[in-house]
């Protein structure tokens, strides 16, 4: 049987809590073998989508397929290869890390029990495995949560805000772990409001706002929105601004501290802009494309959607 290229496929997914719509007609496709970010403000509907994908709550409409299988009809077999942390990892505080893993491994089956030592080592918890979880730091709890996910030898890991409460070292550790997991051919679907981390960790992302999917695709594509800007450092910004007025490659321009910021009309006008300035005697010492961060793009996208309402 051909393996589906997508690990998660949601179509027309909707969920209401009473009169309040939490997720509206959401279509989402997550390809296999990548780190996929799921972005949205608090209350945007990220956790609700995750809970529906895990069968923790039922959608009011729409279909979900995980690893090509219909959900929830094949829920048990699908979730046998899915590891998840929803919102934050919870444990029995009076049990040790190892015992907490035993509790979940018992539910998953004998293969999972055999993996306990391995996943503890993978989470860097071997030395503290026999300490009660009550004494674990937030970072250790996150690592134990990921270790618990790995008991399933998962094809898909779903991590809901996994960087919450982690210090910079913990975030770096988690980022490395996510990339290692992707390197093993697993898919990591992670929701986060730490947009910089998603940009650094994920290959692709989707943006949800007020329950609607507003953008999805590879991170590089999300950062390009068809508008490209150029910072020009020059010795006479006023003259440069006059020279570029009406230039075919320039949609608009404005002066900045040491030059101009130009919005390009097309992608191939940089050379002609440079030639125009240099030929007119303007000293150009810098031509730099403006890279918008994911955070700026996210804020642009979500405020645009907000403005439409």
């Amino acid at each position, binding site marked *: 049987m051909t393996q589906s290229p997508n690990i998660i496929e949601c179509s027309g997914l909707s969920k209401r809590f009473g009169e309040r719509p939490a997720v509206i007609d959401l279509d989402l496709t997550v390809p296999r073998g990548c780190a996929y970010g799921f972005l949205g403000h608090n209350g945007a509907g990220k956790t609700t989508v995750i*809970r529906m994908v*895990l*069968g*923790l*709550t039922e959608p009011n409409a729409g279909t979900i397929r995980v690893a090509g299988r219909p959900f929830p009809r094949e*829920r*048990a*077999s*699908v*979730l*046998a290869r*899915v590891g*998840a*942390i*929803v919102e934050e*990892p*919870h*444990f*029995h*505080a*009076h*049990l040790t890390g190892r*015992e*907490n893993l*035993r*509790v*979940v*491994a*018992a*539910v*998953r*089956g*004998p293969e999972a*029990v055999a993996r306990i030592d391995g996943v503890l080592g993978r989470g860097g918890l071997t030395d503290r495995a026999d300490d009660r979880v009550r004494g674990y730091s937030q970072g250790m709890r996150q690592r134990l949560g990921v270790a*618990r996910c790995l008991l*399933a030898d998962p094809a898909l890991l779903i991590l809901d805000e996994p960087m919450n409460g982690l210090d910079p070292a913990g975030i770096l550790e988690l980022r490395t772990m996510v990339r290692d997991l992707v390197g093993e051919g697993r898919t990591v679907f992670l929701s986060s409001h730490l947009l910089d981390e998603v940009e650094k960790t994920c290959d692709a992302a989707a943006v949800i706002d007020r329950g609607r999917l507003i953008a999805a695709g590879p991170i590089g594509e999300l950062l390009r929105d068809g508008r490209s800007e150029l910072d020009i450092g020059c010795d006479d910004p006023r003259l440069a601004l006059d020279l570029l007025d009406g230039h075919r490659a320039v949609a608009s321009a404005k002066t900045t501290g040491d030059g101009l910021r130009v919005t390009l009309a097309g992608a191939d006008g940089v050379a002609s802009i440079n030639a125009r300035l240099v030929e007119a005697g303007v000293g150009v010492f810098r031509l730099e494309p403006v890279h918008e961060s994911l955070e700026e793009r996210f804020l642009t996208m979500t405020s645009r959607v907000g403005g439409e309402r």
Partner: protein
Amino acid sequence: MTLTIARQMVAAEVLKLRRNRAVMGFALLLSVGVIVLVFGFQAVEHASDPSKNAPAGGIEGFSRAVRVLGLFFGALTAILIGAEAGTADSASGVFRDLVATGRSRLSLFFVRLPAAIAVSLAFVGAAFALTIGAAFVFADGSPTPTFSLIAQSAGWIVLANMIIVAFAVGVGSLTGSRAVTLTAVIGWQMVASLMLLNAKALGSVRDGLLTASLGQLMPVNGRIAEFGIATGVAVAVLAAWAIIPSALGAWRTHVRDA
């Protein structure tokens, strides 16, 4: 679900219970501790004035301890352990993680019952073993319990304990709150039921009380055993007290938003 997984899940439930020091400590106190106190106090009284105070052991002492274990302190032990088993996953937040494994919610509920019964019976069994020993050691020449009485009492205590554990696990799984479960079940079983038993105006309605039916089947002498409920009715009432709360707990576990 295979037998191996069922066994693993029950063992995991037992692990959760037995590693809870507070629950285990109180369970020990309510079972073994109370029996030590009952026999110890009576033994001291008897030693101080044998003409006025009966021996702590013998059939009388044995019967008193069996009643205490079956209807009161053994029941408290069962409620404590049953409430913990019924609420531990919800209270800790781990229920969501267990559901996310894909294992059926009903199986997550049903493994709680044998685990809680096993742990509760370990305490009550130890207390009962102590009771047998004390009945002989402190008999001081009075008649001692026969093997038949001991066997019947053991069976009755096991039955009472299982039913009360199932009751507490069911209510715990229904409410999801340990505090609410303990208050409701202890309040009902230890306070309200005893008050209702004494409300003669209620007549045969009282036959539906768990304590009345347990008392009816109690093999040793005692006030509650003088109720006069038909054995078949008592058995049906006991079954209802085990099955109805369990069914409600299973239903709630099945539909609970994780």
